[in-house]
């Protein structure tokens, strides 16, 4: 199992077990992480699963697709350097132990 820590804007934390190959959004939603609403169920259409990744993870993933890029500009919380839509991020074993920030409470 891959364990990922989600941190809220108020500093509260949640450890989430994520499955290899599923999306980061699914892992967060399965654990009831606040701020990961994911209205569109992973279609990159609603911008309600915004997360901020650690720089090295963000860099490793490569650039988001054009559609996600566009959508991130319209997420509720302002976009940051390492912002992604968590539905577009696939969980891999090398993510074990990373810290992901949720910018919208």
């Amino acid at each position, binding site marked *: 199992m891959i364990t990922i820590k989600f941190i809220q804007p108020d500093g509260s934390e949640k450890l989430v077990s994520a499955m290899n190959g599923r999306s980061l959004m699914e892992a967060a939603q399965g654990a009831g992480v606040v701020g990961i*609403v994911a*209205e*569109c*169920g*992973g*279609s990159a*259409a*609603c*911008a*309600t699963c915004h997360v901020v990744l650690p720089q090295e993870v963000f860099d490793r993933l490569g650039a988001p697709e*054009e*559609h996600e890029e*566009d*959508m991130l*500009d*319209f997420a509720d919380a302002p976009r940051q350097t390492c912002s992604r839509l968590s539905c577009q991020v696939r969980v891999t074993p090398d993510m074990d132990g990373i810290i992901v920030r949720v910018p919208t409470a």
Partner: protein
Amino acid sequence: MESTIPRNEIPAIIDVSFEDLMRDPYPIYKRAQALGPVVRIEAANLLLVTRFEDIVAIERDPATFSSDNPESNVVKLFGPNLMRKDGEAHQRERKAIEPTVRPGTATRCWGPALEGIVDEVISAFERDGEADLFDALAAPISGRALAAIVGFEDVSWQTIAAWSQGMMDGAGNYSGDPKLTARALEVSREIEEAVDRNCPRLLDAPDESLLSSMLQSGLSTKEIYGNTKVAVGGGYNEPRDAILSLIYGLLLNPDQKEKVLANPALWQPAFEEAVRWISPIGMYPRLLTRDVDLGGHILPKGTQIGLSVAAANHEEPRFEAPQEYNAFRSKTPHLAFGSGPHFCAGTWVARIMVTKVVAPQVFARLANLRLKNPDLVTVRGWVFRGPTSLPVVWDV
């Protein structure tokens, strides 16, 4: 009517008429929510799911609750389309239209295009001092905006409105009235002809339009026909009704209106509240691909259920005093744009056009806008619901 229910017998509401649903479905939804997770509404001959969390859970499981129903009137009359597909087939066509409906495209491209349309539409009646905003404002703006976004250079808003009506009548024609079927097939042909007329231009000079995006992504002619019909069926009524509900909600609540007019950032929550309050699409169907236990009721494979997002958007205590328009209620997600893979593709276009262009311009141009008489406003429908008449006056 709602007496003790034997185990596994689905509760039913049998004492309301179709007209009751059309006039005001919300008291009926409230009863249904109290009765159980799935309730038979006899007047509509439909099993309705009305609770918020149930609908969200269903939409997270498209393999069980399919959008694909080859027997539906929509597919039979208008052909296959992305709204009635699941999985990869759906994703492929959805991706094809993304460049047109992205929030960035709406901001950069459709917002400015709409500025001119709204100016022309308002200029035509602004000296009159009174109007019914359904006919004078919302219908022409919504129809002209849709024609531009689809890429129909030569289609009037009146034609869009007539097509939309013909499609809705055909889709809802459960009694099989041959006249309605014939009209729906005629509309279907007319839309295909309009696609055929406009595509050569867009092949030569691609732009941001829906037709152009579908052509660029290599969808087949049949796929382009089907999805263009969905855009006409789902891209005209809904923004029209959302515009009217937003204006109506604010005119009913002058204190809220003043606050919104003083801070343009508040147009966004005001719009979300309008579509929660009167959801333009109140209900849509799903088909069971296997036997399913819904709260103790075993529904067999092949059962069609209706998801009532209108009911979910009035669920208490999630929404306090849900029948009231309140742009300042605490931020709670609603289901007016659906949820899951079929989350409304036009959401961002609607949001940006209404909150950045239409609503601000209406209140800026029509001074001291107010309802002519609150009793004259009519709101109707349940599958599709919105103000059907919004008579207003303003200072000239």
